[in-house]
């Protein structure tokens, strides 16, 4: 079937198999491989993307059913451009090891802050528990989110 998919601000006209998950369209059709497949059944969070700012597991969304603009990790900062405060905080805090869950963690973390669920370490841990990190960088992820939150709020106030 034919679909129009808006990803990182660009509209893509695609003919796809109706069975295709958004995750597979991003990876196999659009070459946006920053979004990762970790379980393909909504358990690990590695495929998290934002749709109109809300975090969504792209393995559980049929591409044909997407309504709204999709933001993937590639959409947060261009090549050579400054990093999003959350990306920078993950880098500075060593909030990853293998890096495989990281794009999903970062997008989920941005939403965690914008949702207002980053009020305390405890709250962050609770609201980030849908994103598994087998390397177990959790303490540094919590640190990074607190650090990025301050910058994101400062930027928002500037605007």
């Amino acid at each position: 079937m034919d679909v129009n998919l808006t990803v990182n601000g660009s509209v893509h006209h695609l003919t796809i198999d109706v069975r295709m998950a958004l995750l597979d369209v991003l990876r196999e059709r659009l070459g946006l491989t920053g979004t990762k497949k970790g379980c393909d059944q909504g358990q690990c969070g590695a495929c998290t993307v934002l749709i109109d700012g809300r975090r969504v597991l792209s393995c559980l969304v049929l591409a044909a059913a997407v309504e709204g603009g999709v933001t993937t990790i590639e959409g947060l900062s261009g090549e050579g451009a400054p990093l999003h405060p959350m990306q920078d905080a993950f880098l500075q805090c060593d909030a990853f090891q293998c890096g495989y869950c990281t794009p999903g963690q970062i997008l989920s973390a941005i939403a965690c802050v914008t949702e207002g669920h980053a009020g305390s370490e405890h709250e962050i841990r609770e609201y980030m528990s849908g994103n598994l990190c087998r390397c177990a960088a959790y303490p540094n992820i919590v640190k990074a989110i607190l650090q990025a939150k301050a910058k994101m709020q400062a930027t928002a106030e500037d605007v």
Partner: protein
Amino acid sequence: MDELAPNAAVFGIPHLRIDGRAKVTGQALYPSDEAVPNPAYAFLLTSAIAKGRIKRFDLHEARTLPGVLDILTHDNIGGDAKPLVQQAGGKATTTLESNQIWHDGQVIGVVVADTYESAREAAYRVRVHYEKEAPAATFGSKGTTEEIREPGEHEDFHIGDADSAFAAAEIRIDAWYGTPTQHHNPIELFTTTCAWNDGQLTIWEPSQFVYGLRANVARQLGIAPEQVRVISKFIGGAFGSKGSATARTAWIAIASRRMNRPIKLVVTRDQGFTVATYRAETRHHIQIGATRAGKLTALRHKGWEVTSRPSTYNVSGTETTARMYGCPNILTKVNIVHADRNTPGFMRAPPDTPYMFPLESAMDELASALGMDPIELRRINDTPVDPATGRRFSSRHLMECFDVGAARFGWQARDPVPGSMKDGDWLIGWGCASAAYPANIATCTARVVLHGEGHARVEIAGHDIGTGAYTVAAMAAAERLGLPVEKIMVHMGDTDLPPASLAAGSSHTASIAHAIVKACDELRGRLIQAAITSNDGPLAGRAADSINLGNGQLLSRDGAHETVADAVKRLTGGALEAYAENIPKGLNQDTVGKLYQGQLPISRGIGREDVTAYAFGAQFVEVRVHRRTCEIRVPRMLGTFASGTIVNPLTAHSQYIGGMIWGLGAALLEKTEIDERFARYVNDNIAEYYIPVSADICKAEAIMLPEHDRDVNPLGIKGIGEIGIVGVNGAIANAVFHATGRRVRELPIRIENLLCPDRAQ
């Protein structure tokens, strides 16, 4: 390499990951991310029974689906690949080579289609007719067979007379322990992409040993290793699961050759439980005899491990437990139990995690029986020599780790009486345990290219599985070439590069750093020699040993200096190149050839002629057990480790706490449940196989004790990836005992094991 010139002091300074930007922007290419032209997609068929034979396949319905291109089974391609050779344990189970079924979830076919969706649907429509036999699942199941593990790769110890000494001991601990089946579950799935071009095969697959994978697949396909290239630039977690080749790769290569088209396979999460390896369940009988003063007089440790029918794979962690404490009478024995299961394999601290849990629990039971502080018990039994061989340890700072850790943790405030420390409805338990892991190092090669502009490129087929190996490699070159880390580019994970060993066994930093340093030192020597023998350079006439490299300069002791870039330009307008092979002490020259052939020449800290080399650590945890619900929480964990030279404290800390959190998972959460009737894994997904999530983890801290060990290897590097997990199981079980008075000897410790002290009384 025995002596090292002064260095530029890069080691030991925290450095952000040089591949960090790629990882936070989604630009890091894991093997399944690599683009290939016009790929077809594969989906594995796996066995629905654990034992028997395939009578026939009914492929008609699958074949008629649109987009289906090919279906591989033993009927059409079974003879095209030789069986896989696993890293350890001899014979392994087979897949498409015959119609035999060794275990549930065994690969029995490959469906290839134009799209992933079509391949998946076709796989679901394949009907398989089996001739079933009753399988044996695990310990105690009817039909398992048991054998005593023969000496060879691992050895048993029979020192003194442990039987008599135990019988005569003033205090005796005699208990049985168990650890469950566990699966690595890296977040990255097992993937393979294959493409052929003019008889050359390229494989993109996450691997901890690209040369090993290349050799294995070449052998299976009957082609030369030079016809195969393996690329694995980023690995999305491994923990041992991506060290050994698995059967899938050769079949995908064959499918791709049949079709003359690149093929991509992404193994599903549940299939990953059976098409790769896992940590087998273990049983232990520990008997410790001691004097009333706490001195050990006898240690008997017998272990049982499950493996597949054909394999003798075992981990034999008695090789560490026999070395932990001074004891004149030691007896160890390991038994293998064959069941209808897939073959187990290496998983984080493979021997030490399951075997140190019983020993460190038993030591705590002994301390309790003696009314002695558990740290003091370990101090009384500390030993400067390896009790198994009589050789000295290259260094052993176990008690220093305990003392520093105890001070930081506040151990002196601990009331030793179980159940005595409380916070409202929460019972507080403080536990500790020793940690140890052998210091291993493998033969390794590297090439370093130094450019006239003052930057360098390191080429080494090493592997960054999340450890920070890219950064460590850059730091090693920066340290010796006197250049900033930012000026070093590192290429890894590709068999077109000089071979590095398996990234496992906490050996990789030591292995790759020595090879890189050796190549850099050759360049360094050439630069210095040219600088001091030049007619007009600023360093002309100086003695070679008066020159050091740092801050991008060659510096003479008298203050004269020249930039590295200028020194290179004196020799060439282009670039200088050095290739080096590092053969660790005790290994032969022929190990380099073996490495090129994909074998693993490694010097093990427990197998050396000169010393026994281990990293040591002390693990502390606080648990809180709710008095009524028996919920177990771990508000803080502290590990203190003495692991020699720490190259990058930033990534080292991440690895240590990652290991500790793995320990928490193993102690409280992780267990692959087996349906004994079908010898089948039940919770084969990561919603029901519990791995730690953010909400499970509070404070985790690692202290790195400075340690200079020049006997372990010239750079004094021991491993850090494994030791973090080793003491945690014991420390948590001991803390649970301290909180509740309940001694749980079977992992994981869950609410149901503790329900409920109040009710029980």
